[in-house]
């Protein structure tokens, strides 16, 4: 069971490595969206400092969502997904492994790049660890919830845009807690409470989302 999960993660990472361009595109999207806001709003440092956590988190949400439609599409097209469904290992474990691989490819780089954008927004450097930690805790939740939407919209007309409609409202708590943790830390009150709540969301989504993803995959493939 664990072997199956590990081999799925390894296979997805290898596939992502073979198509590095796709990963780079999502990351570039994150950076470009975050760079557009000062152009639209103006480069007043106090204003930028105030909106930085929210902007970075919204950009992370959108970037993580963009790569979701690719999560199951290729496996669906070449029949791999059918074989996975027929295989002996539980579908929930496979679904969790797919979501984990998506996080490593689409979530982890965001946490690594975010301090760079925070620098552009003139955020105090003491806040970088909080920002990175909130992204580290929050982006796996995005991958887990997003995978449910990706599985439901598999092979559906207008899947990509529909996926955003399904998934974005469910992302709201992660956005509020993620951006809130940085806000609280910058107000000098410490963001621990929000980070702990994010961790709770992470645990809950890891426990429940794989079964929902598995059920969604069965519905889409029958």
């Amino acid at each position, binding site marked *: 069971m664990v072997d199956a999960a590990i081999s799925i993660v390894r296979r997805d990472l290898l596939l992502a490595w073979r198509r590095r361009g796709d990963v780079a595109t999502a990351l570039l999207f994150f950076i470009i969206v975050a760079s557009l806001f000062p152009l639209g709003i103006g480069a007043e440092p106090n204003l930028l400092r105030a909106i930085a956590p929210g902007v970075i988190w919204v950009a992370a949400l959108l970037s993580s969502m963009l790569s979701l439609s690719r999560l199951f599409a290729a496996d669906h097209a070449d029949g791999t997904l059918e074989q996975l469904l027929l295989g002996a290992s539980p579908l929930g474990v496979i679904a969790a492994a797919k979501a984990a691989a998506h996080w490593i490819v689409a979530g982890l780089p965001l946490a690594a790049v975010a301090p760079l954008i925070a620098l552009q927004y003139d955020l105090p450097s003491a806040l970088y660890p909080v920002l990175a930690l909130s992204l580290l805790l929050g982006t796996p939740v995005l991958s887990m919830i997003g995978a449910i939407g990706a599985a439901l919209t598999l092979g559906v007309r207008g899947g990509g845009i529909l996926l955003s*409609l399904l998934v974005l*409202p469910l992302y709201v708590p992660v956005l*509020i807690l993620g951006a809130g943790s940085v806000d609280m830390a910058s107000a000098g009150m410490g963001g621990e409470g929000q980070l702990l709540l994010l961790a709770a969301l992470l645990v809950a989504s890891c426990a429940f989302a794989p079964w929902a993803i598995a059920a969604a995959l069965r519905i889409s493939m029958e």
Partner: protein
Amino acid sequence: MNWFWYASPQTFYPLAGRIALGCGIAAALLAAAGLYVGFFVAPTDAQQGEVYRVIYIHVPAAWMSMFIYVVMACWAALGLAFNTRLSGMMATALAPTGALFTFIALWTGSLWGRPTWGTYWVWDARLTSELILLFLYLGFIALQAAIDDPRRADRAGALLAIVGAVNIPIIHYSVVWWNTLHQGASVSMAKAPTVAAQMLTGMLLMALAFWAYSIAVTMVRVRCIIREREA
């Protein structure tokens, strides 16, 4: 009594017609009584004047918008558990009414907010939660509309409704917390003033009218779906 007797669309179809007729008449009578009490019997509010009378539409619509989502998720869970065709149809039939009431609650709320708060929209916790609820309804409707196979549409929608129902409390409390952090122009309505008896009567009559209306239109809609699919 065999509860599964009416689980078949064929046996449910005539029953749905009778329920729709009965509830339709009840809705018309209750709404007439409720609006009469609301507009002519209930006293003018001491602080808000006549503006407050929008609550006879607004509050019952807000109640229904949340309640219908719960009912929808229950039908969805029933459908997934027992694999009954009718459950999915009921969830599909409920969604537009739920979305309509959510929209009415937001619309009347902003009409009330303009003279009372001085603005059509504030990022109040309730307003924001209601807006996200509207997005959840629209996502459900859009997902079902995008899938051609009705069985798959039912099951996919059912899963989405259940995921949404699990998430609604989390979304609501995160929004409430966010609202207390960003204390903006919002007005606290937590301590509602004591309501006059006639006001309460009008509101309850309207709530019952909305209940009856929801059941009636859902039954009409489910009859249409049965005809489309089973013909």
